[in-house]
């Protein structure tokens, strides 16, 4: 919505043609999101090495770019770009080339509707939650196609496992997502985030005991659906060589990698909005400091910036715990993965759904007394509401 203000400003003030103003603004937005995703991927590859190193009683990267090896991802990137790009003879070349980009696009599309702070969202959809779940599920296509088109049996195994796993885990994941949505009464991510304003007790995860459990089921399903250890069966290196990635090398391989990290970050972000207050910290610092739109537009903007940092940090914590899991646990077997999903996650999530429903019916308002925000209740800026509600 902000982008429309900017575009309109550009057309009226500088007389730019409408298509250029709108197109330019949209392009800039896309580039920013792409930048965030790339940066996240680069940061996480470095961090994964550091975390792995520390967990394994090593140092991890130390040389490239100074003391902490923080340029390691850049060095990796250059190495990957310089590597020979192989396409096996047996491969279906078109699909083989296409597959990584499908995965990447799906991961990127999540960022299009993911709000980073109050109204800081590229495309404010009022079916945002739904859209994210749908699009995140599309990432599996790239993996399936990549595995199928490689013309290798190990890749095919990886693809089959991924298909089975992701299709199964979409069910409990969807159920877990629906539960906070039911409490919030909207599919609009910005609205869900904003209704958790105030102290940490307002977070949906503390709304009722069922939601609290749901959060952990959601976390489990997120790990499974982003294909991370201990659920990384599609690329299980001790069984399937590298699964669907077996035949990939160089740039295409790194695109898959970026998609994986991108979607990890996005799913953690979604979790933090749905359960952990989104851009609202446990303590309403912004409101204490008076960084609200009620005081001044700039102050409000600063408050939002603080919120964005808050959100990014929470999502970052989610990714960090995924890494922690990965370097600690052995891998599950495919039948155990399916059992976990179908025998435990689905019934449990369904029970939580019913429980939350009954809770909201019997005890509307939540477990803990809802705190009111400090000071004046800051109204959301007008552009955070969906269009139709604004009566345009």
């Amino acid at each position, binding site marked *: 919505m902000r982008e429309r203000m900017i575009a309109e400003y550009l057309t009226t003030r500088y007389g730019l043609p409408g298509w250029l103003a709108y197109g330019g603004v949209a392009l800039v937005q896309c580039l920013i999101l792409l930048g965030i995703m790339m940066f996240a991927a680069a940061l996480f590859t470095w961090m994964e090495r550091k975390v792995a190193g520390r967990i394994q009683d090593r140092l991890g990267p130390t040389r490239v770019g100074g003391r902490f090896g923080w340029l390691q991802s850049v060095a990796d990137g250059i190495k990957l770009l310089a590597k020979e790009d192989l396409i096996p003879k047996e491969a279906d070349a078109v699909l083989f080339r296409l597959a990584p980009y499908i995965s990447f696009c799906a991961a990127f599309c999540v960022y299009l509707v993911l709000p980073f702070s109050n109204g800081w969202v590229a495309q404010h959809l*009022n079916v945002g939650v739904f859209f994210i779940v749908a699009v995140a599920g599309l990432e599996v296509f790239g993996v399936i196609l990549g595995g199928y088109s490689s013309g290798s049996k190990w890749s095919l195994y990886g693809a089959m496992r991924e298909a089975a796993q992701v299709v199964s885990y979409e069910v409990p994941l969807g159920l877990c997502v629906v539960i906070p949505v039911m409490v919030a009464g909207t599919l609009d991510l910005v609205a869900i985030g904003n209704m958790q304003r105030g102290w940490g007790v307002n977070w949906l995860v503390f709304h009722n005991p069922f939601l609290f459990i749901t959060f952990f089921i959601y976390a489990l399903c997120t790990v499974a659906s982003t294909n991370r250890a201990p659920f990384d069966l599609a690329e299980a290196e001790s069984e399937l060589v590298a699964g669907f990635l077996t035949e990939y090398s160089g740039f295409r391989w790194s695109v898959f990698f970026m998609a994986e990290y991108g979607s990890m970050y996005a799913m953690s972000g979604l979790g933090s909005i749905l359960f952990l207050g989104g851009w609202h910290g446990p303590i309403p610092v912004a409101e204490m400091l008076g960084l609200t739109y009620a005081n001044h537009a700039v102050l409000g903007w600063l408050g939002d910036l603080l919120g964005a940092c808050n959100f990014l940090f929470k999502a970052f914590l989610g990714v960090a715990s995924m890494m922690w899991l990965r370097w600690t646990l052995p891998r599950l077997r495919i039948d155990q993965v399916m059992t976990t999903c179908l025998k435990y996650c689905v019934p449990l999530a369904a029970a939580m759904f019913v429980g939350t429903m009954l809770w909201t019916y019997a005890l509307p308002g939540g477990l803990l007394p809802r705190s009111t925000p400090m000071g004046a209740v800051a109204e959301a800026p007008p552009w955070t509401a969906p269009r139709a509600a604004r009566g345009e």
Partner: protein
Amino acid sequence: MINWHTFFFMLFATITCAFAVAVVVSANVVRMAVCLIASLAAVTGLYFLAAADFVAAMQLMIYVGGTLVLLVFGVMLTARGPFVSMKITPANWLMAGLAGGALLILLLCAAVSVDAWKTAAVAESAAGREGGHTVARIGMALLGLRVDALEQPNPALRGGMAGYLLPFEIISVHLLVVLVGAAHLARARRTKKPIEPPSGTSRAA
């Protein structure tokens, strides 16, 4: 003067149609599935443009996500060498082309036959901005409550706006039955044929 609504419509429509044609033309099952995905995903864009945001998300989730993962799964379970692509005769093509072409012409004629259908009522700039806000109303409608009936200016039409509780329930039961049935069908009662012991000279790929 081209506006964004038109631009995106043309973009999505082109993708939709091009990949739909590609589905027909392509002989490889997996490629067909990929083209179908692309085509259906582009239809999602058309839905968004037509202010049907909930339907669009549903399309993306169920159609593109659910159905096609299933489809690709099925393709890969059964796709093996000769079965991936099957050739058909030119005569078949001719017959199919005639039937399909005739249908297409009929439908196109119908599409452009009504004048009111060719003129967009809302000013073009506003059309693209009218974001749908259908989630709650669809939800209520499925529960049998038509809140949108209050917005219907024509009282004659308002009477026909019934709720969808019964169809919703029927669909739910239907889905359940279908799931059970599909699971039952796919459970092949396998004849236990003995697997001959692998010979050492077997060359595995």
